[in-house]
């Protein structure tokens, strides 16, 4: 069983484009049950939540994947697999029929039914609900239960990527009518034991989890260690068994320890320079190109990320992505061309402020790189490092030149429609490209793989050449872990196996 014939078919193609990675289930030796581990996420604050809709930070996603399951989930190949949904199919990509797995139970023993799913999905539409994915959820025209285990999701327009979209942690399924989440009640692999916002989350094995034999661990404690150095030290001193978001500069130490390893996940995560079209000279196409040529991508990869990154081509689709356009010529560091374009743009000696922040990973140093080479190209940049605190609300996209940071999106459609569609809330550069917008809708409507690949290919070209976004590299996600922790493999949507490691790993110690 799997996805319905047509979509299953679509899912079959282009599997060749995958990095050589095992899919779950095939994970090598026999898992063993039992054991307790402690893992460290990147953040912890009183804003920590057990409400999937409000998940804001990676630590939240991890927590939610421990407690809840979704209709679908991601595999190593970035393609959606069925989870709570037993079948999910659509002929027109607008009306989707979903059949739920039978006999799934919530932690409180209640049986999963269509009502739960309807509730879980529709609540994102309430403006006051504080849902993080309301913009995406706005595609839901209607969600209706058609039987105890059957429902239909009607979209406002065609979207072939709905299954992938629903695999995000925000759309994880909660029990109908759940209001406050002090005692979270999900169908996930682990039950809550204790949850103290900003301190720790402890979960214990859910014995009647719907995946046979899983999960393996007795107990997991999830804590947040915001300070990277402390995080790595905690790993090396054996206080935690796995840490997320390791700084590339710490890899050497971790490997040298002999007892620890790195889980390196190539991903679509990127930090980009944003040039606003309405920012005066930054709106000038030549200026944009000049900046793009000014990026010494090799240096950024080497110096900033110690090689743990993939050179990008100023568009948001990473090379390992099924729809990556390989024949698009790679743009490289070229001071002369930069100068040429700047000259054409009529660049003055005036000082251009660039807004960076630790909030956008690596942006401060990228800024320094640009400033350094800019000086040689007669470009006078001033780096403004803003406090991470309040950066997104006050600086991001608000200045002619600022840095943004975009987390991996599961599908080309998600990243394009959220950041590049002219009407998108976070159309960072504020550009407007009719052709691009039209192609976006076309791609959604077509289920035909090669055609979609072609469409997305053209969109990548348009962004790379005409959009004011300079994307030097895709940053690999680096997790450090104790070698006794088994069953890990990269899932490109996020660290910790796309945040969903909990149900897959086991402990041999």
């Amino acid at each position, binding site marked *: 069983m799997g996805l319905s014939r047509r979509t299953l078919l679509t899912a079959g193609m282009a599997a060749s484009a995958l990095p050589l990675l095992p899919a779950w289930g095939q994970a090598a030796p026999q898992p063993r049950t039992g054991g307790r581990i402690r893992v460290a996420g990147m953040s912890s604050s009183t804003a920590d939540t057990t409400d999937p809709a409000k998940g804001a930070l990676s630590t939240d996603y991890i927590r939610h994947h421990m407690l809840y399951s979704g209709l679908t989930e991601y595999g190593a190949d970035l393609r959606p697999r069925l989870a709570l949904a037993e079948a999910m199919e659509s002929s027109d990509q607008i009306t989707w029929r979903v059949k739920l797995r039978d006999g799934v139970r919530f932690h409180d023993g209640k049986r999963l039914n269509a009502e739960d799913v309807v509730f879980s999905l529709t609540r994102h539409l309430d403006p006051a609900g504080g849902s993080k994915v309301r913009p995406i959820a706005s595609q839901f025209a209607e969600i209706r239960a058609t039987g105890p285990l059957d429902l239909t999701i009607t979209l406002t327009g065609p979207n072939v990527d709905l299954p992938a979209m629903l695999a995000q942690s925000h759309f994880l399924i909660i029990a109908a009518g759940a209001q406050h989440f002090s005692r979270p009640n999900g169908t996930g692999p682990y039950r809550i034991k204790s949850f103290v916002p900003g301190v720790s989350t402890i979960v214990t094995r859910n014995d009647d989890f719907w995946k046979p034999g899983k999960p393996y661990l007795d107990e997991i404690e999830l804590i947040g260690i915001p300070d*990277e150095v402390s995080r*790595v030290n905690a790993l090396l001193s054996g206080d935690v068994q796995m840490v997320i978001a390791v700084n590339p500069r710490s890899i050497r*130490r971790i490997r040298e320890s002999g007892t620890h390893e790195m889980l390196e996940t190539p991903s679509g995560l990127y930090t980009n320079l944003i040039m606003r079209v309405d920012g005066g000279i930054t709106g000038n196409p030549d200026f944009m190109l000049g900046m793009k040529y000014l990026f010494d991508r090799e240096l950024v990869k080497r110096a900033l990320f110690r090689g743990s990154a993939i050179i990008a081509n100023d568009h948001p689709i990473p090379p390992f992505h099924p729809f990556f356009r390989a024949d698009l010529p790679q743009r490289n560091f070229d001071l002369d061309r930069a100068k040429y374009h700047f000259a054409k743009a009529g660049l003055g000696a005036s000082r251009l402020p660039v807004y960076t922040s630790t909030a956008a990973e690596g942006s401060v140093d990228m800024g320094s*790189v640009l*400033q350094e080479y800019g000086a040689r190209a007669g470009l006078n940049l001033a780096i403004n490092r803003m*406090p991470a605190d*309040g950066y997104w609300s006050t600086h991001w996209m608000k200045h002619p030149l600022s840095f943004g940071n975009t987390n991996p999106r599961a599908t080309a459609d998600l990243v394009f429609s959220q950041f590049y569609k002219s009407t998108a809330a976070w159309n960072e550069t504020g550009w407007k490209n009719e052709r691009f917008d039209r192609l976006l809708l076309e791609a959604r409507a077509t289920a035909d793989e090669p055609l979609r690949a072609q469409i997305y290919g053209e969109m990548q070209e348009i962004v790379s050449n005409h959009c004011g976004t300079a994307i030097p590299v895709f940053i690999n996600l680096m997790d450090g872990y104790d070698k006794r922790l088994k069953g890990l493999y990269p899932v490109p949507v996020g660290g910790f196996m796309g945040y969903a490691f909990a149900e897959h790993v086991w402990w041999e110690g």
Partner: protein
Amino acid sequence: MSAIVEKKQAEGLASPGWAARLPLAGKVGLGLVIFWIATAIAGPWLAPYDPGAFAHQDVFAGFGAAHWLGSDYLGRDVLSRVLSGARYSVGLAAAAAIAASCTGTGLALIAALAPRWLDELLSRFIDTLISIPSKIFALVLVAAVGSSLLLLFLIAAFIYIPGAYRIARSQAVNLAQMDYVQVARTRGEKAAYIAIREILPNMLHPMLADFGLRFVFIVLLLSGLSFLGLGVQPPDADLGSLVRENISGLGEGAPAILVPALAIATLTVGVNLLIDALPRRRGSKEG
């Protein structure tokens, strides 16, 4: 016997060659201070590389011929960065410390001579400021108004005014009771004259000693701010930020972190050794 002691004191700072009479510790301190001031001024010109330049292929390189103090976490030249970073730790911190001490002293003098209610009000307000944790205060301020050099200076100064005020006030209140102040009052002097000519000169030394510690604290605050992701704007960095940004090199004992740390230590210790050794000027005692 106290006659000689007094003589020494009387000459004090005024006479030339006081440096020569400093105790060894004082000389060492003076040396360090001069060295760092010189570095702060000449540093940017002495720097072999542009502090922002990615001059080295490898990061956290050790001591070497091309790069005496190795390279930092981005492969930039540590020597150059320290040389140009000194400016901020010395200049900014000193300026802020001076501003704090002066303002604090000024307020203290006002409080000491002003009517009770004003004194009370001032003291309450100062208490208010002290009781808000300085780093968090700084965090809020920076978050609220951004972080330019001027602003860092203002914030640092602002945060350390209360401390200076407390010390200065206790000093001023005692001095205000001295006979010579009474004499000045019966001469019909205005409060301003009394504050500046009669009281102030006699609080100088304690305030200097206090200034030394304040300076240390401000250097610390700057590095603390850099820990919270604030502080001097890149690619420049004050010594504290240098330590911070290279902290991950600590495991491998990279010069990139050892050198700035050492720099901070020598700078702050130097300042205080010097101040501790400065000749005091007291009223003479009975023999």
